[in-house]
């Protein structure tokens, strides 16, 4: 009977045969937190490498860092913080079962994400025009300063991997929006909104560390 009631409820939790709805909600959240831990360790390797080479090439890293555009980086930081704020609002809306607001808030988050990527594109292309990317011929010549190469190598690895996470996060949020447009969520079921927002906050958080490391501390 409960089984029937659950499948009849278009806004209730999806029926799974091996656990009840409360367990499924807790399992999804725990699963996402564990996944976030793996993400931190993934970037952890890069942070280690950065720490090592900043210590090895202290002065050169300082000089190389000046080639980055602090204002663009700062703008992107603000853009991502705003995006995270609206992701948090979307979770609040979901807990009150307001699908319309979920769509609005997450759409703003998505717009911010697009803005972030556009700004990143302009940063990358300006580096390319200054001959500071691995795609430039001079970057790969033996005369190119080894420490600069190391700095920009790490810069591209860290920001590109972060950029991939932004794109992946947009895919998740896009999927959540499409569900919210179908009025899928309610006070009884909003797991994807919460889990998707958790992931998005991590994407934001990693940038919060990348920005000072690459743009300011260098």
């Amino acid at each position, binding site marked *: 009977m409960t089984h029937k009631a659950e499948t009849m409820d278009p806004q209730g939790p999806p029926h799974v045969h091996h*656990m009840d709805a409360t367990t499924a909600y807790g*399992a999804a959240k725990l699963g996402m937190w564990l996944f976030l831990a793996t993400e931190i360790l993934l*970037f952890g390797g890069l942070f280690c490498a950065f720490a090592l*080479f900043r210590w090895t090439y202290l002065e050169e890293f300082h000089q190389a860092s000046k080639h980055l555009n602090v204002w663009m980086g700062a703008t992107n930081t603000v853009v991502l913080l705003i995006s995270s704020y609206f992701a948090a609002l979307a979770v609040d809306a979901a807990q009150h079962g307001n699908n319309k607001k979920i769509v609005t808030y997450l759409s703003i988050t998505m717009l911010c994400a697009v803005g972030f990527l556009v700004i990143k594109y302009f940063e990358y292309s300006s580096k390319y025009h200054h001959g500071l990317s691995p795609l430039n011929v001079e970057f790969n010549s033996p005369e190119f300063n080894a420490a600069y*190469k190391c700095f920009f190598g790490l810069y591209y690895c860290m920001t590109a991997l972060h950029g991939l996470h932004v794109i992946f996060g947009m895919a998740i949020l896009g999927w959540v929006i499409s569900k919210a447009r179908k009025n899928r969520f309610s006070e009884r079921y909003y797991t994807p909104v919460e889990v998707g927002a958790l992931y998005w906050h991590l994407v934001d958080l990693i940038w919060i560390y990348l920005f000072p490391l690459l743009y300011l501390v260098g």
Partner: protein
Amino acid sequence: MSTAASTAPEVKKNYLNDHTGIWSWIYTLDHKRIGIMYLVSLFTFFFIAGLIALTMRYELMHAGASGLLTPKQYNVAFTLHGAMMVFLFIVPGIPATLGNFLLPLMIGAKDVAFPRMNLLSYYIYIVGAIMALVALLNPIDTGWTFYTPYSIQTGQGVVLMTAAAFVLGFSSILTGLNFIVTIHKLRAPGMHWMRLPLFVWATYATAGIQVLATPVVGINLLLLIMERTMGIGIFDPKLGGDPVLFQHLFWFYSHPVVYIMILPAFGIIGEIIPVFSRKPIFGYKAVVIASFSLALLGFFVWAHHMFVSGISDFSAATFSIITFGVAIPTAVKVFNWVSTMYRGSIRLDTPMLYAISFIFIFMVAGTTGIYLATLGVDVFYHDTYFVVAHFHYTMQGGAVIGLIAGLHFWFPKMSGKMYNEHIAKIGFVLVFIGFNLTFIPQFVLGMHGMPRRYFDYPPEFESLHFVSTIGAFMNGLGYAMAIFNLALTGLFGKVKAPRNPYDSLSLEWQTDSPPIHDNFETTPIITEWTYGYGTPVRDGTHH
């Protein structure tokens, strides 16, 4: 009731026959079927990588070239043997196979927490395996460790092979994540933490390492790929990079990963010994704590692989001391197993034979590990056959024999049949004698200075190499007998297994053999500890 059903004896539904056809396997979300699929895939690669090992041993049987392999092909052979055994067989190893099959059964759940993710992790494994096989078209000779700067200079296969290892890492992470959530959220009513079977505890500790260590090697391999394709100068000293950084990040994963391989094997031994000794496990809590101490310590010993890589004396001494610390929880486990057997009524069935041989072999493995943790001694033994023998005592004598023990033990549950005990015992004798015959001479060779990964050697090493090769073939024959015995009786055997052939008290034995799709007819309610052997339990009878 149809007439057909009334004339023929009714076939009971179980996870193997409730859906039929190849698509029912390809799309399955059933943890038991996914475990079986992993088992078949893993043993395919075990077979291939084992044949490569025998080829190498044949080459080394006599001094001088045998004509079978060129020196270049020999380098490719030891790389493939190592990379396939590690990344395709022993890392997914016990968790993906027996872990998948048993974990929900042991805690009284219907499935793992995320069945779709479980199937996804299997297909990610298959994608990684296919990438590794394609990489064979352009074989690599770096050894399974992909050390820089050589891996930056040598053949193009490195990029695909490391990409394959990266993809396989995802599969491992998803399995570990799934298991942690399953153990936290899906325990049946009454299955308190301190009632969990030791195999579940071991799988839990293992899953923690899978989740926390794997991403680090992932980023390391990614950086290696970027270094090769973009020349970003992280690892190549010619470009200003640091090759030792690669080793640090590599071993930050690859030391804990040996605990991914061995901890579940410890768990299996902890399940087998109480059942065949008819005694409660001795020091249950100590064994649980030891598992987690090993998982934790495993994260802080990685640089003992790098004592001769130019790390500072201070960090070498620190890592040496922490490595000695690993001996404590390991010894706790060994003492607890032996104490469990003490004055028990021991039955020497095949799983128990493997379990006892595991204790012996692992003691040798652990003791020789102490030698290698000692700084001065390690400088001499580094990159010799002593290390090769130590490693195989832990990984083959430990993880593989643990897996084989577990496969025999849970075979009746998985297949619903009984295997041929005589052939299994002959297989065991061949494995045990063959294994020791292979690697005891290698300890001696290492002490005399025989370096690892060499195609040829001076004539005075010949007799020991000869014995080692004879042992290797015997070992291979033993595994073949053991595995074909299980595979053939599983497929064609006539002897049906009862629910609980060993009178085990553990939950997985209290359901049908093989289990139904949902594991239990009704959700079980657990009222007592798993290991209450020899005490009046349940209906008042002694077990």
